[in-house]
C-alpha cells in the first residue's frame, strides 16, 4: 500500500511554516496550523512586522559582556546604569528571572545570568554554565556581596551550594534568597523542607 501524501506538502509555504511553528515549545501541529491560517488571513503589514521582528532577534540581541544577560547594547542598560549598586551582584539562572526581580523594584544592584543550572544527571556541570565569567567579574574587587537567586529546586540548590563553595575563598559575602512559604499559601500544604527552612530563616516581626 502506498503511503498517503500529506494534504499540505512540507515544501509549500504553508506546510513549511506549520512545520517550523510546531518545533516551538508548547506548540503542536494543530496549534501551528491555526497560527499559520490566522497569519494568512491577516494583513501583509502584520506578517511583515512579525517577520522583521523574527529576523532582527538573532541579529540584534547578544549577551552582555559583563552580566551575560540578553541585550541589544553592550554593556546592557542595567550594567551601564550608574545609579545601581556595583558592590552587589544577584546571580540568576535565566534572563527571565531578571525580569521577575526587576518587576519588584526592590533590588538596585547588578545581576549575573548563568544560563542554566548544574544538573549532574543531565550532564550539565560547572563548565557548561557561565560561572567562569562570574568569577572573572570578581577580579577587580568591587563586588562585596553576591545574592544567590537560583531556583529552589534540586538543580538550583546544587548550583547555589557549588557557587558558595567557589566564591567563599574570595572574601565576598555570599547570601541566598530566603526560602520559605510563598505569599498567599496555606501552611498545611507546606512540605518538610520548606517548613524547616521557613523556621530557620524566621525574622523578627
Amino acid at each position, binding site marked *: 500500500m502506498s503511503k498517503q501524501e500529506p494534504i499540505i506538502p512540507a515544501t509549500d509555504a504553508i506546510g513549511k511554516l506549520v512545520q517550523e511553528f510546531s518545533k516551538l*515549545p*508548547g506548540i503542536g501541529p494543530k496549534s501551528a496550523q491555526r497560527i499559520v491560517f490566522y497569519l494568512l488571513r491577516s494583513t501583509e503589514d502584520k506578517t511583515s512586522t512579525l517577520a522583521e521582528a523574527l529576523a532582527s532577534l538573532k541579529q540584534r540581541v547578544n549577551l552582555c559582556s559583563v552580566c551575560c544577560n540578553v541585550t541589544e547594547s553592550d554593556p546592557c542598560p542595567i550594567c551601564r546604569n550608574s545609579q545601581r549598586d556595583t558592590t552587589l551582584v544577584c546571580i540568576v539562572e535565566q534572563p527571565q528571572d531578571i525580569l521577575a526581580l526587576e518587576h519588584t523594584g526592590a533590588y538596585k544592584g547588578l545581576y549575573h545570568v548563568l544560563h542554566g543550572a*548544574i544538573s*549532574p*544527571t*543531565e*550532564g550539565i*556541570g*560547572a563548565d557548561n554554565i557561565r560561572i567562569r565569567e562570574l568569577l572573572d567579574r570578581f577580579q577587580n574587587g568591587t563586588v562585596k556581596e553576591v545574592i544567590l537567586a537560583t531556583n529552589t*529546586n*534540586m538543580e538550583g*540548590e*546544587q548550583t547555589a*551550594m*557549588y557557587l558558595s*563553595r567557589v566564591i567563599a575563598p574570595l572574601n565576598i559575602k555570599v547570601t541566598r534568597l530566603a526560602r520559605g512559604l*510563598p505569599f*498567599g*499559601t496555606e501552611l498545611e*500544604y*507546606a*512540605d*518538610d*523542607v*520548606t517548613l*524547616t527552612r521557613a523556621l530557620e530563616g524566621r525574622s523578627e516581626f
Partner: protein
Amino acid sequence: MPDPREYQTEAIVIKKTKLGEADSILTFFTPHLGKIQGFARSLRKPKSKMAGHLELLTHSAVSFSKGRGNIDTIVGAQTINAFLPVRNDLWLTSCGLYVSELVHQFTAEHQAHYELFQLLQETLERLTQEDNKELALRYFEVNLLESVGYRPQLKECVTCHKQLEPTTNYFSPAGGGLVCPDCNLNQPFTYPLSLNAQKVLKLIQNEAFAAATRVKIDGELSREIDTVVNGYFKYLLEIEIRSAAWLDTLREQRMQFKS
C-alpha cells in the same frame, strides 16, 4: 468506596523532566510497582501544593489518578522523608543523584523490585547518618549489581575457573568478574584490583551493611573500587553515568581545597 481509578503508593522521586509551561513528568521508584512515571500539572508554579513533596530524592506517599494515556496523573503527595541532610550538602546531594541515576538506568518500568527499593531508601538514609558515606555508596553499587542480576564473580577466575590466588587480580567487565593474572593476558580492557580491594568487595557482597561497616576503607581504596565498578556499569549500560563525572569533579576540587 474508594475510586478504583485512583491509587496510592510510596515512592522515591528519581527523575524529573520539565513539560510545557509549568508541568512536569516525574519518574518514581516504588516498592511494589517498580519504576513508574507520573504527570504533575503546574508543579513548577510557586503556589503548587505538591512541588515540595515531589522534589528529587524525596520519599513520599503519592496518589495517582489513572488516565487514558500511558502516564497517570499525580493528584496528591505527602512527604515521608525528605532526607534533609542530603539536601543541605553539595557532595551528599550529588551522591543521592548518582544513586538515583543508577536505579533509573538499571531498571525497566512496571517491574516490581522490592529489594532494590529498600536498598535505595536505606542508602539515602545512610547518606544522612553514617560516618562512612563512601562505604554506603560502594555498598549500594555492589548490591545494585547483585539485585539486577549482574553479581560480580569474585571467588574464581571467570575464564579458567580456578580459585584465585591472594594477589592482585584483574576485573573483566566483559567476563563479569575477576580473572587471574595468567588469563588477564588474553583479556582486553581489564582493571587491576588490589588484594585489599578484593577483600572489601567480597565483604560488601556477602555481608549485611552493619557487618561491612567493620572495615575502614580509605579514600584511595574506595576510589579503586569505584573505578572498577564504574567501568562495569559503563560496560553493562553502554552509556556514561553522567552524575559520576560530576562526583569526580567535586572530588578533584575537594583535593585542591585541601592542598
